[in-house]
């Protein structure tokens, strides 16, 4: 079998020349890179729930945008940032309490989403809104959205670059960061707004499911493989792009295998992420039951002295 036949087996005819495929590949890669970079911090900070919720809640903004006829991206972004700010409003020191606040805000945000969707349906009878918002399709991105989306993505990356060191320190140990003069709560708020931007961007381009998948999956895999944060970020972006392109390819090819119905691209990408994570996680050492040994921050060196 020569290379030519192998390639034509791998890539169904028309893959490289299709316009939707090209737009999807570019936008998907952009979403994957931004999500991967922001995702590493999200995972380190233990905020995957918030990262997921912001995508859900920002889609409430999407349904509001349908209703008022404004640019959907603005609706997504506005609602996402609003939700991020509400989540940081309540002081919560413990991770479990923070998740609880996240949950309560999500419930309220989704209630608002229900209202807008209901109003969408009664005013315009477009019942598809819930599904479009929830599942979005990477092959149906309007080209007009592309420049604005890329701009928001670049903004999120820039913000991470600027905040990098204090953010990393306050993610690893808030007390230590506070002692070093890092405004920890402000850092938390700024970071969550960046997460909101990143997930709103990917929710509107690739759908809410993929937005969570691309935020958490590649970052979790990268953090399993790399020990240094910088390397993990690079790796997460690369893995994100790889699964996105791989998923687009599988989805495109699947039209051939399944006799024209095909598998949705979000399903293909998510499947690749899930399999990759499961494999990587299995190779790691089995976690001892609750055997976490963080730095004993409270214990001071003890010097015995005579007398």
């Amino acid at each position, binding site marked *: 079998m020569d290379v030519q036949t192998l390639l034509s087996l791998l890539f169904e005819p028309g893959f490289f020349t299709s316009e939707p495929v090209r737009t999807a590949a570019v936008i998907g890669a952009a979403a994957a890179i931004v999500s991967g970079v922001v995702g590493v911090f999200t995972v380190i900070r233990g905020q995957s729930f918030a990262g997921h919720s912001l995508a859900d809640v920002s889609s409430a903004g999407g349904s509001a945008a349908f209703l008022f006829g404004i640019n959907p991206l603005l609706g997504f972004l506005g609602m996402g940032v609003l939700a991020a700010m509400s989540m940081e409003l309540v002081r919560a020191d*413990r991770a*479990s*309490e923070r998740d609880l606040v996240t949950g309560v805000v999500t419930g309220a945000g989704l209630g608002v989403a229900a209202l807008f969707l209901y109003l969408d349906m009664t005013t315009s009878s477009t019942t598809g809104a819930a599904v479009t918002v929830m599942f979005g399709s990477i092959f149906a991105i309007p080209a007009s959205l592309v420049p604005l989306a890329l701009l928001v993505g670049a903004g999120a990356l820039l913000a991470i670059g600027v905040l990098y060191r204090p953010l990393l320190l306050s993610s690893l140990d808030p007390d230590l960061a506070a002692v070093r003069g890092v405004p920890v709560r402000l850092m938390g708020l700024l970071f969550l707004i960046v997460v909101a931007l990143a997930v709103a961007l990917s929710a509107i381009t690739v759908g809410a499911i993929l937005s969570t998948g691309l935020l958490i999956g590649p970052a979790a895999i990268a953090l399993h493989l790399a020990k240094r944060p910088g390397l993990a970020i690079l790796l997460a972006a690369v893995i994100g792009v790889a699964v996105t392109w791989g998923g687009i390819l599988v989805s495109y090819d699947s039209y051939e295998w399944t006799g024209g119905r095909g598998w949705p691209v979000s399903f293909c990408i998510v499947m690749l992420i899930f399999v990759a994570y499961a494999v990587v996680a299995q190779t790691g*050492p089995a976690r*001892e*039951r609750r*055997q976490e*040994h963080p730095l*004993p921050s*409270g*214990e001071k*060196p*003890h*010097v*015995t*002295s*005579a*007398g």
Partner: protein
Amino acid sequence: MARGEVLAVRQASVSLSGRSILKDIDFSLEAGEFCGLIGANGSGKTTLLRTILGFIAPSSGSVTIDSGGKLASVGYVPQKFALDPYMPMRARDLVALGLDGNRLGVPLPSPGRRRKVDEMLESVDATRFADQRIGNLSGGQQQRVLIAHALIRRPRLLLLDEPLANLDMRSVAGVVALLRRLSQEFQTSVLLSAHDMNPLLSAMDRIVYLAHGRAASGSTDAVVRTEVLSQLYGYHIDVVRVHGRVIVVAAEAEDDAQAAVAHDPVHVAQVP
């Protein structure tokens, strides 16, 4: 295991994530004995206690506990317990869970159960804050509640991981005396880890001294000696006794040995 022994650790070695943490640990504990498990930070105290509890399997050797026919015969007070201030639970609820926390069904009010809990709270001097929320208690108060939780079933063996670490000097003496008294009262063997042996000197029947993954055990006088500890550390160590306190010092060591000891601040002392 020999008669009268409650715990026998035989040639036990433990590896975590492929790293060898403990090598050929060998000691035993008799009924009612009070034993200090002494070692610097990272010497493997927590690992050894968790191995005895069965949370970690030894890679070789064995750990045997004589349960005396009881099912849950080991009480345990972990090193770190971050009790949630939002948890709706009083001190007495946690102690009651020590009694029957593994039973199914909701707890129905029972005078016998209540009396046992009250007595136990009284024994550890925790009656004053018995009805307060556990998450709002001070570290020392939580410690007492956890000791009550562990002891209410009258276990044959009580394991405590660094119970003295967060206490002031007065409370340290108080908790040691309390544990000593409870161990005699209930005929419970106590294995207590600490990085400083001094507060325990008068209470200990036996010491297990951990360094570099190995252990020396025996009576305090037999173990805390220049020859024994020098062999354990692998370089010369001086044991100095001043004013009834024991100080372990690395004397005139080579550079790397000096550095190793300097990492264990417990053993660094400025003797005037």
